[in-house]
């Protein structure tokens, strides 16, 4: 926990980083540096509307895996790509703890007028759960568990309707929620109690393998309501954006998938289908992670924190770089 508050309320997104922060967050790695720009995104540089004619520009949207929880700004995959591709600037619009629904809103609110060449929609596979949630759990400054409301979309027929906006500003206690809202609290997955026990016993990986645990059954069927909602959000975003050939859709795997303790096939299949359906580029980085031996892959996440280590970010960067270069080769300018 840091003695600095990191986020400020936002009436559309729910929250974003406080602008102009320079904060060091204590962490099992020893700590990492967070710098935010004037607009309130984790970046060492300001986001300008007009593009620098000498540079190509990529916009990236995502959650904490993109915002870089656990690592300093310069060690994130977005910043590494900037170093790997000369004359490229990457605008990282990642906000920790958010879902793809909020990423779409971030694009609408902050990025749609920003000139660029490529847009990367990074979807942590877990986001499928966040988009159906209306409340997320956080720890407050005293380390107590509280809920914050978030905006969310619902499908009314084929129509995507935004709800819960503006979200409530103040934190809520879980017992304050009416019973009908309780199912919409994002609790980090299924079998909460069993997970807690297994985690405390330190046998999580073993149990996952033994039971063929599938953490995200929402991907099992193309007709699962959560997947239908995800697809609708992505479709509306890409349609509104209008230039699908510039879009890279990147599902970011969790460690279960990287370390092969659960089957990645369902989610990979779903993202293949939706990319094809929307006509956007799919970048699936999982094979690039699998190219490393299992004992090396364990080092792509921290000991306790599941976020990528600097090594994990490096692999992701090298993987995504290939797709960005490919798209940049096809699209040399943005009008």
């Amino acid at each position, binding site marked *: 926990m*840091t*003695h*600095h*508050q990191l*986020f*400020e*309320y936002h009436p559309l997104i729910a929250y974003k980083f*406080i*602008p*102009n*922060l*320079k*904060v*060091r967050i*204590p962490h099992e*790695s*020893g*700590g990492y*540096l967070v*710098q935010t720009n004037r607009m309130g995104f984790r970046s060492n540089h300001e986001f300008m509307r007009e593009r620098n004619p000498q540079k190509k520009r990529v916009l990236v949207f995502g959650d904490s895996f993109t915002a870089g929880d656990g690592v*300093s700004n310069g060690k994130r995959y977005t910043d590494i790509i900037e170093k790997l591709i000369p004359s490229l600037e990457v605008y990282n619009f990642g906000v920790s703890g958010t879902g793809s629904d909020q990423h779409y809103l971030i694009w609408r609110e902050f990025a749609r007028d920003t000139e660029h060449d490529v847009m990367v929609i990074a979807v942590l596979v877990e986001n499928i759960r966040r988009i159906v949630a209306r409340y997320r759990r956080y720890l407050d*400054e*005293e380390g107590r568990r509280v809920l914050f409301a978030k905006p969310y979309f619902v499908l009314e027929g084929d129509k995507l309707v935004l709800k819960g906006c503006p979200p409530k*500003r*103040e*934190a809520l206690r879980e017992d304050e929620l009416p019973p009908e809202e309780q199912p919409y609290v994002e609790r980090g997955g299924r079998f909460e109690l069993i997970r807690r026990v297994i985690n405390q016993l330190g046998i999580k990986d073993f149990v996952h393998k033994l039971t063929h645990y599938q953490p995200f059954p929402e991907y099992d069927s193309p007709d699962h309501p959560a997947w239908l909602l995800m697809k609708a959000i992505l479709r509306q975003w890409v349609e509104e954006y209008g230039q699908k050939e510039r879009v890279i859709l990147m599902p970011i795997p969790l460690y279960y998938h990287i370390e092969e303790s659960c089957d990645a096939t369902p989610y990979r299949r779903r993202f293949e289908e939706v990319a094809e359906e929307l006509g956007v580029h799919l970048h699936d980085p999982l094979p690039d992670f699998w190219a490393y031996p299992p004992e090396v892959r364990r080092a792509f996440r921290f000991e306790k924190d599941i976020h990528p280590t600097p090594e994990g970010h490096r692999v992701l960067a090298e993987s995504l770089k290939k797709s960005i270069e490919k798209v940049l080769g096809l699209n040399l300018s943005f009008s």
Partner: protein
Amino acid sequence: MGKIILGISGFYHDSGAALTIDGSIVAAAQEERFSRKKHDPRFPKQAINYCLQEAFIEADELDAVAFYDNPLLTFDRLVHNALAVAPRGKEVFIDGALGILGKKMWVNDYVRQAIGSLGKVGKVLFCEHHMAHAASAFYPSPFTSAAILVMDGVGEWATTSLGVGKDENIELFAEINYPHSLGLLYSAMTYFCGFKVNSGEYKLMGLAPYGEPRYYSRIREHLIDIREDGSYRLNTDYFGYLDGKVMTNEAFHALFDGPPRKPESRITRREMDLAASVQKITEEVVLRTARHLRKSTGERNLVMAGGVALNCVANGKLLAEKIFDQIWIQPAAGDAGGAIGAALLVHHLYFGEKRKIQPGRDGQKGSLLGPSYSSESIRAMLDRKGYPYHHIQNRDERLRLVAQAIADGKIVGWFSNRMEFGPRALGARSILGDPRNPNTQSVMNLKIKYRESFRPFAPSVLLERVSEYFEMDVESPYMLLVAPVKKERCKPMDLERFRGGDDDMLPVINQVRSDIPAVTHVDYSARIQTVRREDNPDYYDLIKAFEAITGYGVIVNTSFNVRGEPIVCTPLDAYRCFMRTEMDLLVLEDCLLYRNEQPQFEDDENWREKYELD
């Protein structure tokens, strides 16, 4: 960029961290401010995190990490002490040995675990305790050469050290060793008078002017042998700290007419007189030592550190005696300040880097070396919590509003700029009031600080006005000097009943002693902070605004906390303290919060229990 060094102090009391870049102090903070545990002795991981944050560097960019103490030497002292008092003292030895072998010996591991790196040197560099104190006093001072005086309870062995600093070099040429310690004598008396050791010494000093040094001769005769050169020896037959967990023993109690005062019980004439007596002893030792130091070193300047250097009454006497031309005292003179000393020692002596002195200015930067909070982050907190506030961006307007509130008798919580390093609030985390108002002292003590009513408050005065109010014409930016209030401002007091033996201090406290009664102690003295615009522009301009309204370039400044609580660090700490007390207005940078506009405060912790009384 020059060498980047992290200094750490900890595991005794008041741990802290400091970071220097190219010999300049970039950040320093005490762990207690973050952990909210007063005098927190634990490894200062949050203070270290803050220091790296302020410099905005990765841990592996550190050139070195320095620790303020040598655990092996401390262990050596413990073993010797145990042998000397055997078979008694087993518990003291076990406790001390566990503290050292269980923690201090593993500083490397603590650092690696906390920040993931030991810097480029690859190991923690250990200093000696009094060398760290000496370095914290000499290197940030504005002097190219100076005599050095370090006095505290105990480090490894030394309790008093005399030395000299010249350019980059520091030499400690004489020392008095444990168990003989002026600091421990003062602490023993603090304990005996019912206050907390390592924290209540300040109260004893504040109590001293109410008493007469009636026990002076008894202390000289039985407890301490003071030589002409200021060196001294204690008679250890009277102290409990060698072989027990309390400072005094039965012989001590018998000498001073009975058992120790129970904490929180009524303060009697005995405690007042004991306070006056031990204060007189302290001043005598300090003055004699200073004279000896002046003579033996030939230096015209003096620098000081160690807990005893926080005795601002003794410091004031030292200044008034004009033994040295100039005096500079490390404002974080206690153990936390050792972190600065350790870092600077490594910079100048390990890496051999030259000192860079700015003529006429010290390197302490007003001791505003802690975290600051932007208006954006303050408003983010207030918005999220739903606390009503007025965002007044016009600086002049804001300062005028605050100054007017103080002039109207309101008590203001003032949170501005970077947090202070050291025990004193210097206008960054302060509670402010009107010094002219005869009610300010009692209101602040009883309704704001919830502390003993005898305790005085300090003035912050514009530097250029100091000699208009006080018998002093030098700078005292760190509130470490006491001087008399100008005679023409003082008013006679009726002390007949009190001097006649009545223990009740209230009739004395409530008498108007000058035209700035809230900052005039019962002996017509004041613990002064002079304020320069360069050190803290907002605070200086606030006092200026108060002067424009009232004609007085001075305000009451006390630390922003309640009794037993560490000074506030974050805006949320400040808000909590504001709502737990009867302050009228809270200033969080450019946001003003009026008490009568705030919602009912749901206090979720029992702070009266959480913050132990000192």
